[in-house]
């Protein structure tokens, strides 16, 4: 028996398998943003339909779910009813807010009128807010606690379970 082959082989194999095994449980879509644990960047944007300005400071005191989306994005269509249903169930204890970027107000309004909504949607005209939050692609959702701190970020369409799991993090840190 060649002991050095056995030893080196087992060493490389074990290291590789362990690393891959640890990696298995992780969801690469659950991107940890450097902003997690930090106060969320402030913004005040125009609400679609009413034209009034919504400042996120006004939602301090309860958890806030900020969902970045656009009408041209397929998975955003898919997650929209999930978000609306959860917002209906959880508001007013938890506030939901949609932020649309790279889109036109007319298309957004049409989308919301057709599919319904349960929370305000604002327009991020030049994408400044999305940049401040480090949005990589839509949909992307941020979970803020009552003090306005970002607790979690999720990239990809929402499901009821994902919303629940992330709100748990917000409520019980």
């Amino acid at each position: 028996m060649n002991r050095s082959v056995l030893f080196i082989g087992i060493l490389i194999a074990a290291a590789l398998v362990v690393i891959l095994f640890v990696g298995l449980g992780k969801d690469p879509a659950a991107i940890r943003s450097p902003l997690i644990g930090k106060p969320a960047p402030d913004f005040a944007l125009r609400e679609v339909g009413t034209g009034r300005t919504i400042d996120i400071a006004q939602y301090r005191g309860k958890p806030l779910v900020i969902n970045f989306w656009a009408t041209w994005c397929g998975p955003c269509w898919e997650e929209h009813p999930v978000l609306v249903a959860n917002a209906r169930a959880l508001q007013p204890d938890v506030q939901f807010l949609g932020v649309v970027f790279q889109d036109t107000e007319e298309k957004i309004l049409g989308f919301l009128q057709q599919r319904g909504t349960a929370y305000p949607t604002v327009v991020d005209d030049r994408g400044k807010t999305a940049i401040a939050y480090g949005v990589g692609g839509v949909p992307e959702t941020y979970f803020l606690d009552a003090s306005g701190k970002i607790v979690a970020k999720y990239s990809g369409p929402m499901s009821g379970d994902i919303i629940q799991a992330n709100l748990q993090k917000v409520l019980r840190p």
Partner: protein
Amino acid sequence: MIPILGRLLILGSLLAATAGSVLGFVAGRTRSLDGLRWARRFAYLYSALIALAAIVMEVALLRHDFSVSYVAQVGSRLVPTWVTIVSLWSSLEGSILFWGLVLGIYIAIATWLTRGRYPEYQPDAIGVWLATAAFFSFLIAGPANPFHTVANPAADGPGPNPLLQNHLLMSIHPPFLYLGYVGMTIPFGFACAALLKGRLGHAVLKPLRESLMLPWVFQTIAIMLGGWWAYEVLGWGGYWAWDPVENASLLPWLTATAALHSIMVVERRGILKGWTITLVQATFLLVILGTFMTRSGVFNSVHSFTQSAIGPTILAFLAVALLFTIALLAFRIDKLEVEGRLEGTASRESMFLVNNLLFVLLTFTVLIGTVFPLIVEAVNGKQMSVGRPYFDSMVIPVGAALLFLLGVGPALPWGRATGEQIRKALLPPLIGAAFFALIGFALGVRGAWTLVTLAFAGYAAQVTLAQMFVPMLQRIRRGDSVGSALIEGQLRRGRRRFGSYIVHGAVVVVIVAIAVSSSMRQTTELTFTKGQTHKASGFDVTLLGVEERHEPHRFATIGRFAIARGGKPLATLEPRMNQYQMMRDPVGSPDVYTTAARDFYLSLANVDASAQTATVTVYESPMIVWIWIAVIIMGIGGLIALIPPRAPRVILIETPETA
């Protein structure tokens, strides 16, 4: 009906593979010829059943039978028929079934070609092949079953991944990749059989080399097709991003290339046997690792399938395969008898050894760069990514060293050489080196690495050309006519050598094209309003207009540009943004004006149809097209080297009567 039939076929294939594998290993121990015969029959049975299962799935796809879960997942009545056909490998479950099909074809052919010829090795080889087949059949039967019954089938489905529909290349890249990946199972079987027997005799080297060479050819083409696709579709002007999944396709290619070289040292000198076997086995293990990487959802990549439950199963298989291989190596590697020894430091075989070490170094470099983010995350929980700078800074020097060896190695004689012989072999190609470097310099190359690469390439090109035609020149010197020397020396007798040097020559072209295109690329960003003309890299670019187009499965915004040079119109380019229903972000589709000297590449950065404005990134890269052409030539060279030396004579001798 179809789901049940499919499941039965898969279960049958699982049983056949398991039974055949056990029989193969038993026959390997008992040397029972009956056992071997039955193992072979089960191998054919497995191949037939899995092929039937794949055909059944194709039928279900073509008939839009949405009661089959996989069809419900990827089928659509809206997409063209060719998309429906390639849907077989467009999504996870189908791709594993396709894997099984390719493995079935390989196993059937390998079993048929080696029947009765390698009685010592064949039983264990079949055992290993069918054990792998059994695992994949298990995957298809269980965690990745495409044949679930859908209780209330819908009238229509969503269609396959839009990226697959975006470009024809994407439908031919995966089959090539599978033909490469899956094919590595066959040499792995021979390598394991050799270890189980404790003997790597001369006879088994031929099937080992050939069964490695064929998938190598496919893998080479597949990697190129992937790069070409990225270049034509993704719109960032490049073709390789060191993405985990790209690396997954490169890793087994590197070890397979190393093994193809070390096999020659085994043939000539009877040394490096254990090393060669280890490389062949590593190739297969890296294939399984790559499969895990693409299908486990551990790595974020444009190429990977979505997260799935089969990750743990593949990881378990990888662990078992690793354990099996390591145990086999540890217990048997010392039994492989060494028949010769390494002679002289400046000999061809020692250059082969250095070549091998460099390939293995490259493999580790890429492997570590790929899994490093996972290591970091496992250790301290931080997320990070290893980017281009790491890979470039590591791979460029090793690549240059390999190119250097590609020149020096073949120039040196086998065995011990005198100083005079070495000087005679190594000095003349310096002319080629100087020639290439000077041409590059004259054409404006100033980067140090690029000039070094060009010099090495010139050296290698001269050696390659000289070596390539050695047999022909010898015959001409002996008085043969040029025609008969060409046919007899190059095509008939020296095919393997000729093919190998064609590969080498093509590699020189690929490396030069990569070095020149990446170091001399010019990028400009230009903003246009309709009718406006800008100058870019000597071309006049005019925005003719922006249009929006609704297509059944996507919505496109297209910028139309006229390209002219010196007042002469050359082409109209239409880079576009495609927004697919199921995609999060729009997919940019660049458009390219290709000439032999350079590519002129337009990619939309921003486009507004109502204002008729567009911002494009313009990439002007020299020599790009030579990468694709030369890789295809590499594949052809590999195939030439594969044609068996004793081909039927009728091909070359004129015999009008036999027609």
